[in-house]
């Protein structure tokens, strides 16, 4: 890619400045799906959660599946982007923002489920430690309480991690725009003038955030796994769950990132920026995670089988050969048998190949979460209390709504923010100057070379 900075500005700012009919059509379709989900949700809150298919003993099903799935997807971004930043992988530049924004939206969507799945969702704030006249604190021994802290920490951290490197790009939009856009971007770019001091601070902040966000991300999905592992339920009460969940989260996260990138490059015409190289590199990462995931599930299943504990074996057989087995073997195909050849054989590791693999992985990982939750609940210790589960239209609609919400938020984000970090890309183009003194390089950047918004506003 040998684009001049002007060409980059032109290509990458086009989606921000120009709105096509396709944008409105997409927004319209997605909004109608979300509206349907909103109606389903209102219907549920009004009538009681009985309109879902949940029962005794399957007290959790689609709700918590979606929760774990979306929190898992959120590990795409910040974690991948932080690792690539720390490893100084130069190919990361067009990828990072795409990834980071997935994190923020997926966390918002996933974090909604612990609230809407409550029997009395209007009292959700009782899960938070807030000062109240009764002097009652939440129960700090409960993993749901830990979820509250883990997710709120992660959402704050990843919002900062996403927003900091956007500031220079917003300043660029500000400098290139007029009218309401000028006013809007003047506010959001927070007075960015591109001085060496500002560049230094940005660089320092990003270094700190990249280091801080990794343990936060790992802890978040560990805590999500402990929602299950802390309860004495067959096949939930497992020491392997925390690393298994973190692995699955990164796995599904990379898959989501690849799909998002493929859609963006087509829809916004960014073929010159997101190239086969990026898909290939992410495909290799995905391959590693697929193998790792398989290793975890084999470890889990094999030790359970040899342990031969009766209550666990009931769950085990229900997934291997029983009523859940079609879902289980679909999951194995989607997460391992189909993606591994597609990603391992160089000839197949194309953009199409990685997108196909990612799509099956998204399906497979959703099933994986479902298969962790429901078979255990429906095969607890006493055979008399065994049960089954069947979803209703309400929870299916809400699930569809979450996917539509993810896409809508993504489309809107790409409307207001250059989806590829322009300044980082330009920095990368200035190869081979990888100077630790970022400010030296940055002083040549257009955001500084042109009059700043603050200067021209008056």
């Amino acid at each position: 890619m040998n684009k001049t900075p002007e060409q980059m500005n032109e290509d990458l700012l086009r989606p921000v400045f120009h709105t096509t009919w396709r944008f409105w059509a997409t927004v319209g379709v997605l909004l109608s799906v979300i509206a349907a989900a909103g109606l389903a949700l209102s219907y549920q809150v009004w009538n009681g959660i009985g309109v879902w298919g949940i029962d005794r003993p399957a007290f959790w099903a689609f709700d918590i599946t979606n929760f774990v799935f979306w929190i898992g997807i959120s590990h795409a971004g910040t974690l991948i982007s932080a690792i690539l930043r720390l490893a100084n992988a130069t190919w990361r530049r067009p990828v990072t923002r795409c990834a980071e924004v997935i994190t923020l939206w997926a966390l918002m969507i996933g974090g909604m489920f612990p609230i809407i799945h409550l029997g009395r969702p209007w009292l959700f704030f009782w899960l938070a430690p807030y000062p109240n006249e009764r002097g009652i604190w939440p129960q700090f021994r409960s993993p749901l309480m830990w979820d509250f802290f883990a997710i709120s920490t992660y959402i704050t951290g990843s919002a900062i991690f996403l927003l900091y490197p956007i500031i220079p790009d917003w300043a660029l939009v500000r400098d290139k725009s007029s009218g309401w856009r000028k006013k809007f971007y003047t506010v959001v770019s927070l007075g960015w003038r591109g001085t060496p001091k500002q560049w230094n601070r940005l660089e320092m902040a990003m270094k700190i955030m990249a280091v801080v966000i990794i343990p936060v991300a790992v802890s978040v999905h560990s805590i999500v796994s402990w929602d299950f592992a802390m309860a004495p339920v067959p096949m939930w009460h497992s020491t392997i769950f925390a690393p298994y969940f973190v692995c699955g989260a990164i796995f599904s996260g990379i898959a989501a990132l690849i799909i998002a990138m493929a859609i963006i490059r087509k829809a916004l015409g960014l073929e010159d920026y997101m190239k086969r190289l990026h898909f290939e590199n992410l495909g290799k990462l995905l391959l590693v995670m697929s193998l790792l995931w398989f290793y975890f599930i084999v470890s889990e299943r094999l030790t359970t089988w040899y342990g031969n504990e009766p209550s666990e074996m009931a769950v085990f057989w229900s997934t291997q050969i029983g009523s859940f087995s079609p879902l289980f073997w679909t999951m194995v195909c989607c997460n391992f048998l189909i993606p591994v050849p597609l990603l391992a054989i160089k000839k197949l590791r194309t953009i199409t190949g990685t997108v196909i693999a990612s799509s099956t992985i998204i399906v497979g990982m959703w099933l994986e979460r479902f298969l962790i939750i429901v078979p255990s609940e429906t095969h607890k210790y006493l055979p008399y209390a065994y049960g089954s589960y069947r979803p209703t239209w309400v929870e299916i609609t809400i699930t569809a709504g979450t996917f539509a919400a993810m896409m809508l938020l993504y489309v809107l984000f790409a409307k207001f923010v250059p989806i590829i970090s322009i300044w980082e890309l330009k920095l990368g183009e200035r190869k081979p100057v990888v100077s630790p003194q970022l400010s030296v390089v940055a002083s040549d950047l257009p955001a500084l070379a042109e009059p700043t918004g603050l200067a021209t506003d008056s």
Partner: protein
Amino acid sequence: MTVDLDRCTGCEACVVACRAENNVPTAGPDQAARQRAIHWIRVERYWEGEFPNARLRFQPVLCQQCDAAPCEAVCPTYASYQNPEGLNAQIYNRCVGTRYCANACPYTVRFFNFYNPVWDKPFHLQLNPDVSVRSVGIMEKCTFCIQRIKAAEIQAEAAQRELKDGEFNPACVQSCPTKAMVFGNLNDPESEVSRLSQSTRGSKLLEEVGARPKITYLARESAPEEGGATS
């Protein structure tokens, strides 16, 4: 509490009595088919042997009032907690309905109100005024008829005397025609329930899970009937 499996005939009088005493709502056929019926105590039936040499075994299962109750630690709002007398209490007003306690319970004896309960007329007139009715979205479970415990304690305190063993009973124990269930104070070594729970026939349900349940089941020791399976 102790439950003598030798004496249980599976008549389910305890189930009916519990329902009447504790305002347990009736799910109706549709909801019951969707596995949403609420019954704080249930009589589990297990068949031993193959027909015609089959033998039926009954096992009443209710909240085991565990000492190390898995349901309590997981509740984020303290709705499920251990009261000073060692009962697993459920504070309905605190419950937001995460249903986590129900998942953590190894005995599956916690019940959720999927809808607001309805009592068809005139059954609404028979509600027990000593027991609150539970609204949509909250968990409920066996309380060992805490309203009876409290009433007896208050009366004993007013009369300035100690509670006597067997002075009162939960509805299930009271209604059991074969006296299979015995209720009392486990901390009193003289009580009948203390004596029975030391029995060599005694065992706890799912002891291996480690919840330290307080109910002792006394194993069957009667000879199988003529033509029955030998076990």
